[in-house]
């Protein structure tokens, strides 16, 4: 028995529907990845090209020209480890934010839980993250950087990374129903935010008084944690992790809002 009316369904029931459709999200994600690289000669190698370019360019700028001090860790490893988390974060927002608009025609003609769309879009960056990690390990080998036991925490960090990106992505999605300005705002915002986050530098570059402000940014904490796990740098302070918890609230509120507004969003498409 299935009742259709305009009363909102309870959060738990919506979650259950999405849970049951989870295999579909995986099928969607697999399909999207296959399509993205299906008409290229180099295939997945295209993931490596932009990252390698980034690492080389920033290494030349910061390490050779500006002679930035990264203590005993080689600069390319600092820049690359920063980019690992940041790129995944950015990919999620880029993919999830405009997802409903991109798939509008599809959603209007096919029966599926609408949440599946932003969900599977958020997973697409995983491939690039995986390949980047592989590349990173090769770079570590080249620089004779030892592998540490703390590397085992990596899956947890990736999950936090995923949730963090999704918490912002889903809000961009929620707010971009009638007007799509929010999508553009988010993409421009990311270009600014990459410099407010220690991606190409270490937090120690700034005067110490600014450090707490830096850690209000959840990506600072996460990138710090990546560097701790991969390169053995200092672990982010406790208050930074407390600040990170706020984003859990943002995430749950974002998902709830999506469930409440999903049909309204469809009407705008």
């Amino acid at each position, binding site marked *: 028995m*299935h009742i259709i009316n*305009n009363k909102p369904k309870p959060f738990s029931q919506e979650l259950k529907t999405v849970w049951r459709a989870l295999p579909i999200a995986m099928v969607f994600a697999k399909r999207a990845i296959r399509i993205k690289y*299906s008409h290229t000669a180099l295939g997945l190698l295209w993931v490596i090209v932009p990252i390698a370019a980034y690492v080389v360019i920033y290494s030349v700028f910061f390490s050779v020209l500006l002679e930035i001090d990264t203590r005993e860790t080689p600069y390319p490893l600092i820049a690359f480890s920063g980019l690992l988390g940041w790129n995944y974060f950015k990919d999620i927002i880029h993919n999830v934010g405009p997802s409903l608009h991109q798939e509008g025609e599809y959603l209007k003609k096919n029966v599926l839980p609408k949440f599946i769309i932003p969900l599977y879009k958020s997973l697409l960056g995983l491939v690039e993250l995986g390949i980047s990690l592989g590349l990173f390990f090769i770079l570590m080998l080249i620089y004779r950087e030892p592998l540490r036991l703390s590397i085992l925490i990596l899956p947890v960090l990736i999950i936090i990374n995923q949730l963090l990106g999704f918490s912002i992505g889903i809000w961009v999605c929620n707010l971009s129903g009638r007007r799509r300005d929010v999508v553009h705002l988010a993409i421009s915002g990311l270009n600014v935010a990459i410099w407010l986050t220690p991606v190409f530098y270490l937090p120690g570059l700034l005067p110490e008084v600014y450090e707490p402000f830096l850690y209000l940014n959840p990506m600072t904490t996460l990138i710090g944690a990546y560097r701790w796990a991969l390169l053995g740098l200092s672990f982010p302070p406790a208050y930074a992790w407390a600040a990170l918890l706020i984003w859990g609230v943002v995430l749950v509120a974002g998902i709830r809002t999506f469930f409440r507004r999903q049909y309204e969003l469809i009407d705008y498409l």
Partner: protein
Amino acid sequence: MIQVDNLGKKFGIRQQSKGQPTTEKEVWAIRQLSFTLPKGKALGLIGPNGAGKSTLLKILAGIYLPTCGQAILSGQSGAVLDIGSGFHPDLTGRENIKFAGRLAGLTKEQLEAALPEIIAFSELEEHLDTPVKYYSSGMFLRLAFSTLIHTECEILLFDEVLAVGDSAFQEKCFQKIQSLKQDGRTMIMASHEPAKLAQFCDEVMVMANGACQFLGPAQKALSFYSKHFALSSTPQPRDSRYLEQLTYEGATVIGELPNEEIAVTFTVKLKVKSHPLTVAIALTDSLNQLLFSGHQPLVMENVNANESMEVQWSFPKSHLNEGLFWVNFYLFEEQNIVEQLPKVGQLEIPPYQDPKRNIEGGFHAIHIDSQIQVSYE
């Protein structure tokens, strides 16, 4: 089973014109719709563009949320709402079947089990490993229809898609739909083709402006539809070389039972008298299928250009069962049609008293006296 209760859907439609601020207009795509469709039945939706047929299907499929009212469905619904929707052009037919099957709720194991059957029904074995962007619309339909009917969906929704298959596949669909109905699947299909709906559906709902205008047995509803929506005003000859004016004067019943005749009368003005012309009048049923016609060569010496003449066509009334008929007018020059005015007039035959004729009337349009002899031993 589908039970729809006072369903309504309102859209806010933005209107943008240059130099003016954007305004929003509220439009009710569906209003106060109520009906019940029992398990194992098929309902057809017909109506002019913008009548709300697609919106209704999308609400039942769970794509749109109604603004008011509710619908109760007895099971999961599956839908084919557009040719090729749900398929990705870059993936092969096989990959798309798997994808669509999973989307419609099949598990991996169920899908593996159903795959040979889906492929066999679609008759697309040879093209299965071709990306579907090279498919024709008929092939899309085969793929979508085959996949959907092999899922567990208890309620099937089709929007205007069955029309694209070729006649062999349509016949196959028809057979399959009959057996699906016996399995207790419930169906709703929207179409602009009355003949298709008459073939597939038990009941038909005529919709206009988002509201139900008529709901009843297929034949009756389609008669209602052709009477109220398919009739334009009497078509007039345009840029005709032969015909100046044509007026349908109506049909009358002449004579007495049991030899009643129907007389259809036209007033015709011809432009020319030099060509050897033949007048033909034909009767079509409410689905506009040709039933029979009468032909009469004109005696051209007696024709005066631009002067009215009366043309009367008569035939025995008892040959027509109850229902709605169309009168069509043609001019022939030798074997060629040189002028055709379809649906110039309408003819309605009221129900007969005879119960046998009543059964026939819901069944087909033409009556010929025949006997069935049953020998009981």
